[in-house]
C-alpha cells in the first residue's frame, strides 16, 4: 500500500521543530510500523537526506525503547502493543499517518521522534530497588507468597518503562509507571521492608522532574502496552499516605 507520512522533524533539543510530509510506496501489510519507518529512512538516505531519528531496540515488545505518537495515539491504533509490534495491516492504502514524539516536559525531544526518557531512570534510582542481597532463587515453599500477591506483583513487573502512560495522560503524569515500580516490590516480602522509604523517595523524584499530577482519568492504562491497571496507582497512594503517617 501507499501512504502519506506527516513526520515531526527537529534538528536537536534546542531547535524549533515542524512537520515534514513524505510518501512511501508498496508497503506490505505484513511489515511492522518500524520496518515501514526503515523503508522511509532508506529512501531518505538514498536521496541524500537526513534519516528520521526514532528509538527502538528489541523490536519484540520487551525493551520499551520504541515510542511514537501515531495518529493521535501512543504506540498507534492497536491496543496493548508497542510500536514495534504494530503491524501495517492496521492502516489502509492512501492513509495519511501523523507521527509525533512523546510530548511531556519530563521527556524533552532530543531529535526528531526521539525523546529523553532518562527521567524514568532517575525515578528508579531514587528507590526502585531492593538494597539487601536477597540471595539465589528461594525454595518453592520457603517464602510463602499468596498466588494473588504473586500475580499482582508479576503484572506490575511487566512495565517496560516505555512512557506511553506519560505521553497519553492529559496531565503528563508518570503515576502509572511509578505505581507499577512501587507495586512490584511492595507486594513481595523482599521489597516490603523498604516500601515506605521507596514510595516517598520515588514520588519526590517524580515531582521534581516536571511530570503533572494524576487526576485519575484512567487514560494511561488504556494505552499502556502491558495493560497495567490504575489499581496500582491506588496502591501507590496508599503506600505514600502510610509512609507519611509513619514519620
Amino acid at each position, binding site marked *: 500500500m501507499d501512504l502519506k507520512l506527516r513526520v515531526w522533524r527537529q534538528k536537536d533539543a534546542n531547535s524549533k521543530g515542524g512537520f515534514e510530509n513524505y510518501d512511501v510506496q508498496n508497503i506490505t501489510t505484513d511489515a511492522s510500523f518500524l520496518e515501514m519507518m526503515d523503508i522511509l529512512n532508506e529512501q531518505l538516505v538514498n536521496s541524500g537526506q537526513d534519516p528520521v531519528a526514532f528509538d527502538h531496540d528489541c523490536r519484540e515488545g520487551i525493551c520499551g525503547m520504541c515510542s511514537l505518537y501515531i495518529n493521535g495515539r501512543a504506540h498507534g491504533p492497536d491496543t496493548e502493543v508497542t510500536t514495534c509490534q504494530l503491524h501495517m495491516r492496521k492502516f489502509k492504502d492512501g492513509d495519511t499517518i*501523523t507521527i509525533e514524539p512523546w510530548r511531556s516536559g519530563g521527556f524533552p525531544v532530543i531529535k526528531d521522534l526521539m525523546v529523553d526518557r532518562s527521567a524514568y531512570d532517575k525515578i528508579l534510582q531514587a528507590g526502585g530497588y531492593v538494597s539487601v542481597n536477597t540471595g539465589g532463587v528461594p525454595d518453592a515453599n520457603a517464602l510463602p507468597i499468596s498466588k494473588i500477591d504473586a500475580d499482582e506483583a508479576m503484572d506490575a513487573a511487566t512495565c517496560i518503562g516505555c512512557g506511553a502512560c506519560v505521553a497519553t495522560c492529559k496531565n503528563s503524569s508518570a503515576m502509572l509507571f511509578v505505581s507499577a515500580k512501587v507495586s512490584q516490590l511492595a507486594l513481595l516480602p523482599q521489597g516490603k521492608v523498604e516500601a515506605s522509604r521507596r514510595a*516517598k523517595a520515588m514520588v519526590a523524584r517524580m*515531582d521534581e522532574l516536571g511530570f503533572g499530577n494524576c487526576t485519575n482519568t484512567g487514560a494511561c492504562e488504556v494505552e499502556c502496552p502491558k495493560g497495567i491497571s490504575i489499581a496500582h496507582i*491506588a496502591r501507590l497512594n496508599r503506600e505514600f*499516605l502510610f509512609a507519611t503517617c509513619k514519620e
Partner: protein
Amino acid sequence: MSGFMSSSIGKKFFMSITGLFLMVFLLVHLTANLALLFGPEAFNKVSHFMGTNPIIQVMQPVLAIGFILHILYASMLTIQNQKARPESYAKTVNGHQSSWTSKNMYILGGVVLSFLVLHIINFFWKMKVTGSPLLNEVEVDGEMMENAYGLVVGLFKDPQLGIVYSLVYILGAVGLGFHLTHGFWSSFQTIGMSNDLWRKRLTAVGYLFALLIGAGFSIIPLFLMITA
C-alpha cells in the same frame, strides 16, 4: 509533613478529603431542601433549625474553608498539569481512553463555583446579612421565624426572572452531578481506597450519587415550575 503538603499525592489528598467533605455537605443540604416539597411550614421549620442549630453554625466556617481549599488546590493542580506538557500534540484521538468529565473537572468545577456565587447572593446573603421583604417573619407552631419558603418561592416564581433562575439552578445541579460522576470514585482512588473490584463498585455508587444530587437539586425549581 511539609514534604507531604507540597507533593503531588499530598495535594491530591486535600482535593479528595475536601471533595468527600463537600459531598457529605451536599447530602445534608439536599435533605433540608427537599422539605420544600412538603409545603411552607415544613420548609420554614427545617430552615429555622438549620439557621439556629449550633452544630450547623460551627460547621459553616468549616464548610467555607473546605470550599476554599478545594478550589485553591484545584487551581494549583490544574495550572501545574497544564505546564507539564509545554508543547501539545498536533493530533490526538481521545474519548475511548477516559470520560469527558474526568478531563474537564476544572470546567465543571467552574460551573459549580459560578452557581455557588449566585446561590449565596440569592439566599445566604439575604438571610444572613441584608434581609429581604420576602423574609418577613411568620408564625409556625406558635414560634416566629423567617419565611425562608417565601424567599425561595419568590425567586423561582418571580414574574420576569423566575424561569431564568429555575433554568440556571437546574444547570448548576446538572454540572455538579457531572462533577461527581468522576469525583466520587476518584476521591476514593486518591486516598488509596480502591482496587480493580472496588473501582467498579465505587463508580457504580458514584453514578447513583451523582444522579441523586443532580436530580435532587433540580427537583425544587422543577416542582415550583410545575405547581402553579
